[in-house]
């Protein structure tokens, strides 16, 4: 599985210490793409978060779906792959509000709730956020390069931008 472009789909997580790997999530809408990288150790992980909070009794396999479980799990797995706690940096994007008028319906504001829940967990776990590109009303794709820890985000009809 070396030198691969790993697609990280909804509720999936991929962690790699292979410098030839790229981790990619395409078409993030209200979901969050959260990368945690240690560029010196050439370790990176990407998780595709779907919802802010897990209902009671959710098991480990579903952890990447929910921000409150996904962030600690990604941290743990990046550390297990060789990431060093002082060197870890988080980059996140997504959390857009895709459809029409958000109004006050909480389910329509799921994008901003996802972003807020993810940031809250990062703070709680004391992971430094290098950059974030969240909110707005359009989709994004994210690409993480394990070799350099570089993270690129691309919006609709835009050139990739380094975060």
């Amino acid at each position: 599985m070396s030198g691969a472009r790993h697609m990280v789909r909804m509720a999936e997580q991929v962690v790699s210490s292979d410098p030839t790997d790229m981790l990619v999530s395409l078409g993030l809408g209200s979901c969050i793409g959260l990368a945690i990288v240690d560029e010196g150790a050439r370790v990176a992980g990407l998780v595709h978060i779907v919802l802010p909070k897990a209902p009671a009794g959710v098991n480990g396999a579903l952890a990447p779906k929910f921000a409150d479980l996904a962030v600690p799990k990604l941290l743990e797995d990046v550390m297990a792959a060789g990431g060093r706690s002082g060197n870890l940096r988080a980059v996140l994007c997504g959390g857009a509000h895709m459809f029409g008028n958000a109004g006050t319906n909480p389910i329509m504001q799921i994008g901003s709730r996802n972003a807020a829940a993810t940031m809250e967990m990062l703070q709680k776990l004391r992971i430094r956020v290098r950059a974030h590109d969240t909110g707005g009303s359009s989709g994004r794709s994210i690409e993480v390069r394990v070799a350099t820890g570089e993270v690129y985000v691309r919006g609709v009809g835009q050139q990739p931008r380094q975060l």
Partner: protein
Amino acid sequence: MEYSDLQMSAIREIANVGTGSAATSLAALVGHSIDINVPNAEFVPIGELAERIGAVEEMVFGVFLPVLGDVPAAVLLVLDHDAAETLCGALGCSPHDEMGESALQEIGNILAASYTSAIGTMAGVAIEPGPPVIAHDMLGSIVSTAVIMTVEAADQALYMETSVAVEGEPCAFSFLFLPEAATVSRLLHGLGVG
């Protein structure tokens, strides 16, 4: 997933009943004759929906409607650029102006009401669509957000590949029925696919 003959006929019947009434309502809206066919209808795991429809980063129009009643659910129509142009063109507008957006939402309303009513009849449940909202964005962003907006979406959705001919001019779009997990067994059982 493998389906029995009974299950396949239930899915086809939804398509037949739904498309029949949708064609009539749409023809009345656009003032042209409309033919609708569903060449493919199946239950698809939600994680695979976007890839089944097309390229995940392709720009598409998505019309989302909540479905209220006995079996809470949601409906998503996905139209590529050509389909949106054809349907809006029949109404004398463009998908990129405000009137075009209203037109696509109204078309979404008609199709959602027709299919939802067919599903309700087949499954023996009372359901109807709420007001539509629209987005123009990447296919993957639209489909994943629609799944999330279905509150507690089930693991699979009814995917109906739909082709429409407006006065002989063909276009195609995708219709997704996204049931909630808590009620999916009731729906599938009612449809004979549980």
